[in-house]
């Protein structure tokens, strides 16, 4: 059975390759820092499962220190020119879309098919992780199609991965760091403290005020945690269930559905949701790392307002 562990090996090998290409690139004045950063990251993928937690912790801290104190750099990319790419685009035409679109299509196909096939009663892939594993398999198929079609040098994929990964830089690791931070918040009980403050300081005696507090609280707490999933249990246990449902007789289904979506409004406004908001600015080479958040804020605020009105209107209907 293919599990997440196998996919981690693949990621680890890619990171190790990126570290080696960086090591040999003299055009990057900080090549050893890059090499150390991606190399250690590769180790966490390859053997992280088997290392003691404390060792993993020190590896993470080493990565953070390399990236923040020493700093990562980028090699001067000598490669294709705009004109060369234009010519290549003309030559290959729409065939270039085939590997690119194969990634999402095979991922979706994989999630559907892997659930249905099993050998001797054992599924081929770990079904709990079927989407992520399908994505990894899809990228391998797409890479194979690309290699056969374009016939680039054998090491071209890893060099391209290096170019893109160095362009994204430390932001590539930020989502994972924030997930770790969320886990520590949970261990320390940050959530209960926050909902305690909300209950103590906000006058929660009118249904509309309670609904607004719950929805805004979901958004605000999601902004702090970077994740609506972390905010939902806290706000719902602290405000939603005792006040909206029990005190004012609201419908728990509607409250929960719209409450979660209010949290998503918070996700749109916070740098803590790095994989949605910060990583794309790096991927799209935007100079302002808050550029995506700035575009999203007006929509998020308008939608949060809409959610408050919808919940107030719908939740007390019966």
């Amino acid at each position, binding site marked *: 059975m293919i599990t997440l562990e196998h*996919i981690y090996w693949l990621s680890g090998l890619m990171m190790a390759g990126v570290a080696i290409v960086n090591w040999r690139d003299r055009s990057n004045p900080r090549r050893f820092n890059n090499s150390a950063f991606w190399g250690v990251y590769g180790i966490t993928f390859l053997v992280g499962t088997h290392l003691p937690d404390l060792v993993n*912790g020190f590896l993470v801290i080493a990565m953070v220190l390399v990236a923040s104190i020493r700093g990562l750099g980028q090699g001067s990319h000598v490669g294709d020119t705009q004109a060369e790419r234009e010519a290549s685009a003309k030559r290959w035409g729409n065939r270039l879309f085939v590997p690119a679109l194969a990634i999402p299509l095979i991922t979706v196909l994989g999630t559907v098919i892997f659930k249905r096939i099993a050998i001797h009663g054992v599924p081929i892939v770990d079904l709990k992780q079927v989407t992520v594993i399908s994505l990894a398999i899809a990228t391998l198929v797409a890479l194979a199609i690309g290699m056969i079609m374009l016939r680039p040098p054998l090491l071209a994929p890893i060099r391209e*991965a290096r170019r*893109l990964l160095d362009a994204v830089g430390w932001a590539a690791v930020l989502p994972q760091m*924030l997930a770790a931070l969320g886990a520590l918040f949970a261990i320390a009980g940050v959530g209960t403290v926050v909902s305690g403050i909300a209950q103590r300081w906000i006058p929660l005696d009118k249904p509309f005020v309670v609904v607004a507090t719950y929805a805004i609280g979901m958004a605000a707490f999601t902004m702090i945690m970077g994740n609506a999933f972390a905010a939902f249990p806290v706000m719902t246990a602290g405000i939603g269930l005792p006040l909206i449902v029990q005190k004012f007789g609201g419908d*728990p289904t509607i409250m*929960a559905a719209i409450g*979660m979506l209010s949290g998503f409004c918070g996700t749109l406004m916070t740098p803590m949701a790095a994989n949605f908001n910060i990583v794309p600015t790096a991927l*799209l080479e935007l100079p302002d790392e808050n550029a995506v958040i700035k575009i999203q804020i007006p929509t998020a605020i308008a939608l949060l307002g809409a959610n408050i009105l919808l919940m107030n209107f719908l939740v007390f209907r019966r």
Partner: protein
Amino acid sequence: MLTLIGIVIVVVGFVLRINPLLVVTIAGLATGIAGGLGPLEVIAAFGKAFITSRYVAIVWLVLPVIGLLEHAGLKERARAVVAGLRAATASRVLLVYFAIRQVTAALGLTSLGGHAQMVRPLIAPMAEGAAENQYGELPQSTRYRIRANAAAVDNIALFFGEDIFIAIGSILLIRGFLDQNGIHVEPTQLAIWAIPTAVCAFVIHCTRLLLLDRRLRAELTKNHDKT
């Protein structure tokens, strides 16, 4: 109250623009210690949480093939395709993507998108290409704005589409949490009550996208006249 120190550190760190990796690490360690863990226990807890969240980074596996295709002119081709459509504008390209992304997410096909797989190699170049087609060479700031909008469309359409699908993580979480509190809800009911917000999201954001086209026209035709 001391447990909130991590939040303070994160906010101050982001405001002062200190390297976020460093800020998050310090916030995590401080929160753990404020929560009563010993220094080594905190580091171990941090390491463990980092290792269990590795799945977030699987998406980087797409970079080799995306880089390869970009080298072969994928972005240029995406632009050229849009250049052939006379009706295409930056906003219309993004509108179509928004609708496709939201509907497919509502059907559970959340992986038909993403910033590394779709936005960078295809959607952003298409939107830029459409604007170039209308106004000629674009100022860099306009390119940045169009790209940021492309990323925002991917996020918003995903967030407010996926909750209509009954087997998505957030629905399962809601159901599990309410079950623990003795309230039984049907996933289909949760999904149905996500629809009003989904409609609002579509209306609000697509209106803003249409305004983006008007803004681009106002700015870029003015520039054109000057030169």
